[in-house]
């Protein structure tokens, strides 16, 4: 790993001031530190977000949305979101392993937008709002492709506000070595319809499966998606699974999520 300057500010304003140029924000580091070791990234400065108390915590907002601050760890979400949004807590409880969950943060995961990460499916599936130091971004605008988001270089995710569905579930098929989702599906049932968000499948990152959403909005049962299918065009194909395999997984996992959420 090449050397870099390290700063650990105690406020979001100071962190934003420290960013810019070749500096990078450091969340829990569970992706960024391995990437630095492989020299896939060469920042001249890392600005740690773990010393900022205003970036930590979970609370219900007066409008019924669940607020998760940007540097909240997966372990904290798993524990503290349980009573407010069980499906989200359950998703967090199955990211990586216990040690990874004690460091990894929701903001870090979303800013990285790994095509196989779990959180993007929950954010898109819950029609969440990503709040930064500069603006509020709808989930449908936030993700722009594999490892890509609309965030600018000196923008920090301060909070994620989730709509809480009446029922929801996330199912993933593990890639057994990395323990990332080979494919994962988040299904959320709201009063005005069902959202189905898929991660780990598309070369463009997380996406919504519109056909399943309309079928499930009309009839929230496994059989409703029996005649729907996802095209393997544009799906990830690698040694772990072909595009057709992933397309098949999307449907299978959607049905499992519907069964678990029903």
């Amino acid at each position, binding site marked *: 790993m090449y050397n*870099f300057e*390290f700063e650990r500010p105690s406020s979001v304003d100071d962190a934003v001031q420290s960013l810019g140029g070749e500096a990078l924000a450091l969340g829990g*580091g569970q992706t960024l530190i391995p990437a630095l070791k492989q020299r896939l990234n060469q920042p001249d400065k890392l600005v*740690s977000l773990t010393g900022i108390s205003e970036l930590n915590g979970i609370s219900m907002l007066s409008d019924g949305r669940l607020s998760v601050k940007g540097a909240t760890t997966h372990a904290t979400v798993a524990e503290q979101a349980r009573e407010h949004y069980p499906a989200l807590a359950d998703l967090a409880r199955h990211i*990586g392993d*216990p*040690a*990874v969950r*004690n460091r990894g943060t929701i903001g870090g995961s979303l800013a990285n937008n790994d095509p196989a990460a779990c959180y993007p499916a929950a954010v898109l599936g819950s029609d969440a709002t990503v709040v930064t130091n500069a603006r509020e971004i709808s989930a449908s605008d936030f993700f722009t492709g594999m490892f890509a988001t609309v965030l600018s270089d000196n923008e920090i995710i301060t909070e994620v506000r989730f709509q809480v569905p009446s029922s929801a579930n996330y199912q993933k098929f593990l890639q057994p070595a990395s*323990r990332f989702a080979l494919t994962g599906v988040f299904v959320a049932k709201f009063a005005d319809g069902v959202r189905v968000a898929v991660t780990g499948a598309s070369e463009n990152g997380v996406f919504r499966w519109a056909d399943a959403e309309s079928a499930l909005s009309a009839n929230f049962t496994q059989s409703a998606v029996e005649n729907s299918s996802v095209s393997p065009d544009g799906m990830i194909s690698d040694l772990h699974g072909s595009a057709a395999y992933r397309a098949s997984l999307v449907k299978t996992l959607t049905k499992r999520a519907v069964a678990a959420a029903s």
Partner: protein
Amino acid sequence: MSKVTMTVNGRATSGDVEGRTLLSSYLRDTLGLTGTHIGCDTSQCGTCVVHVDGKVVKSCTMLALEADGAVVDTIEGQANADGSLNVIQQAFQDHHGLQCGFCTPGMVMSAAALLKDNPKPSESEIRKYLEGNLCRCTGYHNIVKAILAASGQDVSVVAAE
């Protein structure tokens, strides 16, 4: 270089580190605490697991400067005050929970964290908790037995010998 200060196994420590210095390097190279192992160096294998402020972390995937001011516990601090093995360590010996021993420091540290939160875990809970700790010798059964035994539970429920 920046100065870092942390309490390791109850002792105040400090040292000069670079931005890129990992917590695992600080423990091993600066403090000489080589019980914390580096296996994969990619946060997969768990041999580098230590406790930071009471929580398990992979010390190869945390910068030393991130632990500034923290309380860190490593395998060297696990034995009883008189130097004898603690309950978990003794159970690993009694139940043959190690062969080559390379993964053992991480296994013991993970087990200690699990039993603190969940004093009587089921076999399934133990296996799930250890998903970030790899062992290439034992096939895990005896590690699971050792942790069950350390929690004061019957180990005969673990199928394989």
